[in-house]
């Protein structure tokens, strides 16, 4: 019968309570008895004291009685003394009589004593009332009587005391007994309680604590892995029930652990299959591996195979097997849809299960061992039958939904594997084509990781261009070869440049730089971004281009020269033609004028004046013709290394002799020992003379001309100096510089712009031909030199001529 643990505890506590009550009862009872005895004893003591007091007062009273017999007594004091004692006796008797402690017998005794005492007192009063009692015989008799009464009373009192005393002794003895009994009861009670508490402790330990500890220990053992452990509690209470529940729980735990183990195994198999699916193996290798890892599944035998539908539709071909006999391998090499269990699975598109060999198992051989099967169809996403997995089972195996669930999961993975492998095979084929194309292209191609900038692939053309083994290229950062100037800054990724079609440099392994034409596109490979860079070697093309450019430049230069020469030639031809045709009539006119001058000399002023005008016009026309001829003659220069200073000196002396420069101060500030210039002396002379004459003409009222010469390095880039195509001088080139400065009227800014234009003149119709500066510039240009004029109105003009130094 099951007893609740609270009932047990209640019962035990009730018994303990009853025991306590009994114990208390006994203690109280014995204590009460003891108290009573004590009370009685105290009463008895009081009684004894009262009786003793009476006895003493009686003895005291009896003493004076004797005193009466002593001669000379009976004094007043004695009398009073006696009276006091008597009062004492009376008080004692009264006290005893009034005390409730005395029983009837005792009260009778005291009454008797009182009676006798009254007699005594009576005699005493008689005696005291007798004058001169001493010596009085009567009195003597009375005294003797009184004495006898006194003795009697004292005796009675003595007896009374003894009686009371014996009573007191009895009560004291009883009281002692009660005391001992009380102590005994308490002792026994304590012992009984100790035993009882021990019993309680034992009870709790046995019924609560020990089972709980046992439960805890067992739980710990189970927690530590001893799943087989069970609790053995025979108690029929809650703890017993707890044990049962605990065992049930452990059973459930064990079952669930088994479940987990099964699931774990299933999950492990699935994980392994997933891992295998990622391996870079052929389809057959992957399927074989998958099968090998599937058959350790505890529900099946380590036997099975995987069929695939190949080129022939409707037929399963055994691709991989595990532990199959040679006979069955032969029989099941190709199974048409619908035949045997596997064929039926392929046809029905559902898992076919059999617990033993039955009529559906058409493919059999003699003495085939009993077994069951799971045949699971492998169906693609687009519902295409890919194949069947066949697994062997122990005979009598029961079909299980969970197992089917697992098998569907397996098949899902296998479907993925098969489909992916097929795609991969296709891709590999394409990749092979692509590789052939890439490898045969004469274009260098590299694939670069967009994040790390590392080259991950390079085709043979790229390898050849870089000029080092492929393994020295792959794995290296792109800027080592591809973008040598862009280290750390990818022009495409970081600078956002469009480099397609741009001309770049490829750094070869030997340090040479290869001119390339590049294109870059972003591609995604396996989810990662890469750059596909393709480039062609354009070194030859660049060289050809450069050659072409140089040739073009030369040609252009030559053409320019030719054009210039042709122009000059044409002008020259025209000029010489015109010169002849014009000079002849001019000659006639001049001769005519000369003749007329002589004929009319001094007679007609008007005519003379007109003749002078005619003569001037003829000279002017002749001057223009001469200038035109000069202009054309510049084409033919006789270049020799010349000393500029000596040309300058000649020019100055020629100007001085030919023209009147009396009021002009010419100052030479030339540098000594200058390098020679390549020049046509006469032409350069003509230029200097032109400049000097212009300077002189700008100072009609006199002034100063400063001629400077020096050689120096040209630093400042200006018109004609620099690294441009048309620059005559390179920056940093040494050149000879001539400056002719005047303090003349200067040239306005507007005129300065036109100053080199042919036929531009500020000298008026009679002044210049307007060709002087134009011719001068032409001559300087023919010398590959530069001429520049700077001027400020009212301050003067400076002409600077820069000439090439003759190469030794």
């Amino acid at each position, binding site marked *: 019968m099951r007893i609740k643990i609270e009932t047990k505890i209640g019962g035990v506590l009730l018994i303990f309570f009853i025991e306590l009550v009994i114990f208390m009862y006994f203690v109280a009872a014995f204590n009460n008895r003891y108290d009573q005895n004590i009370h009685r004893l105290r009463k008895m003591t009081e009684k004894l004291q009262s009786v003793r007091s009476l006895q003493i007062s009686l003895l005291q009273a009896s003493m004076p009685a004797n005193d009466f017999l002593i001669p000379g007594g009976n004094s007043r004091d004695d009398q009073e003394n006696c009276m006091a004692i008597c009062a004492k006796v009376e008080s004692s008797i009264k006290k005893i009589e009034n005390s409730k402690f005395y029983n009837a017998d005792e009260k009778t005794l005291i009454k008797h004593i009182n009676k006798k005492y009254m007699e005594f007192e009576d005699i005493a009063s008689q005696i005291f009332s007798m004058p001169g009692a001493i010596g009085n015989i009567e009195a003597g008799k009375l005294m003797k009587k009184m004495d006898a009464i006194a003795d009697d009373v004292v005796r009675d009192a003595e007896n009374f005391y003894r009686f009371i005393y014996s009573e007191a002794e009895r009560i004291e003895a009883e009281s002692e007994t009660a005391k001992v009994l009380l102590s005994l009861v308490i002792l026994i009670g304590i012992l009984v309680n100790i035993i009882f508490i021990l019993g309680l402790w034992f009870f709790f330990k046995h019924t609560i604590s020990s089972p709980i500890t046992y439960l805890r220990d067992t739980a710990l053992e189970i927690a530590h892995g001893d799943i087989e452990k069970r609790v053995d509690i025979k108690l029929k209470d809650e703890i017993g029930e707890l044990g049962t529940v605990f065992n049930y729980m452990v059973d459930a735990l064990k079952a669930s652990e088994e479940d987990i183990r099964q699931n774990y195994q299933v999950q492990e198999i699935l994980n392994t299959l997933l891992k295998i699916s990622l391996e870079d193996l052929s389809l057959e290798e992957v399927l074989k591996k998958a099968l090998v890892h599937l058959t350790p599944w505890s529900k099946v035998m380590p036997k099975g195979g995987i069929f695939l539908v190949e080129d022939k539709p409707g037929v399963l071909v055994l691709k991989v097997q595990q532990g199959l006999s040679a006979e069955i391998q032969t029989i099941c090499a190709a199974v048409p849809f619908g035949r045997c269990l596997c064929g039926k699975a392929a046809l029905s598109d559902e898992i076919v299960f059999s617990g033993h060999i039955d009529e559906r198992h058409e493919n059999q051989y003699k003495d085939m061992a009993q077994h069951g099967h799971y045949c699971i169809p492998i169906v693609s996403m687009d519902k295409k039958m890919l194949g069947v997995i066949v697994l062997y089972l122990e005979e009598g195996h029961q079909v299980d939904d969970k197992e089917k669930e697992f098998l569907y999961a397996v098949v899902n993975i296998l479907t993925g594997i098969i489909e992916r492998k097929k795609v991969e095979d296709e891709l590999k084929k394409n990749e092979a084509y692509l590789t052939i194309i890439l490898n045969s292209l004469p274009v260098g191609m590299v694939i670069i990781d967009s994040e790390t900038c590392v080259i991950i692939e390079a085709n043979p053309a790229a390898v050849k261009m870089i000029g080092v083994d492929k393994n020295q290229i792959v794995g290296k950062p792109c800027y080592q070869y591809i973008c040598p100037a862009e280290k750390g800054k990818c022009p495409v990724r970081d600078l956002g440049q469009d480099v397609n079609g741009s001309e770049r440099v490829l750094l070869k392994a030997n340090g040479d730089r290869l001119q390339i034409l590049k294109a870059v596109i972003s591609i995604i490979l396996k989810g990662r971004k890469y750059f596909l860079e393709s480039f062609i070697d354009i070194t030859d093309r660049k060289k050809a281009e450069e050659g072409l450019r140089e040739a073009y430049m030369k040609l252009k230069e030559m053409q320019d020269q030719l054009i210039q020469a042709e122009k000059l030639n044409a002008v020259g031809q025209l000029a010489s033609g015109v010169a002849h045709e014009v000079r002849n009539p001019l*000659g006639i006119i001049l*001769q005519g004028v*000369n003749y007329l001058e002589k004929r009319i000399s001094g007679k007609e002023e008007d005519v003379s004046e007109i003749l002078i005008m005619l003569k001037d016009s003829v000279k002017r026309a002749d001057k223009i013709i001469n200038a035109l*001829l000069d202009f054309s003659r510049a084409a033919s220069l006789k270049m020799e290394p010349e000393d500029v200073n000596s040309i300058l000196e000649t020019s100055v002396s020629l100007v001085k002799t030919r023209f009147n420069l009396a009021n002009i101060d010419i100052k030479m500030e030339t540098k000594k020992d200058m390098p020679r210039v390549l020049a046509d002396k006469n032409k350069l002379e003509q230029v200097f003379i032109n400049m000097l004459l212009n300077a002189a003409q700008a100072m009609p009222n006199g002034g100063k001309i400063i001629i400077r010469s020096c050689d120096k390095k040209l630093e400042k880039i200006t018109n004609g100096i620099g690294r441009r195509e048309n620059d005559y001088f390179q920056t940093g080139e040494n050149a000879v510089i001539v400056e002719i400065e005047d303090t003349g009227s200067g040239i306005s800014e507007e005129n300065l712009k036109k100053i080199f234009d042919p036929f531009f003149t500020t000298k008026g119709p009679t002044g210049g031909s307007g060709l002087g500066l134009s011719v001068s510039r032409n001559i300087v240009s023919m010398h590959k030199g530069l001429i520049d004029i700077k001027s400020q109105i009212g301050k003067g003009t400076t002409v600077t001529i820069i000439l090439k130094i003759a190469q030794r």
Partner: protein
Amino acid sequence: MKIKRILTIDDEVNFGRLIKLNLELTGGFKVSTATSGRQGIELAKKIKPDLILLDILMPEMNGFETLEILKKDKDTAGIPVVMLTAKGDEASMAKVKQLCGELYVTKPIESSELKAKIEWVLKKKG
């Protein structure tokens, strides 16, 4: 002072005439004119002038050819020849020098200047 005979050879008839007028007007010269090289050579041989003024650009025989013939012919080789021409290029001047022409003067020229140059050449030739 002995009058100097001057022969002008110039296809410009008017120019020759004016030279003649101007030079003869100064009093020291007797001028004959020819209008072509051939005519000039013939005349030179015939009259043996003291100096010949020769144009270059002429039809048929130009001044250079005429000069060459004159200077090669022993009859005329000693006669100083002043080229009086509208052609003023250096190449022509060089050629004249090479052909032993005495002076090269370009048109237009003032008669006084021409006279001075003729006198200078005559003086030089002595």
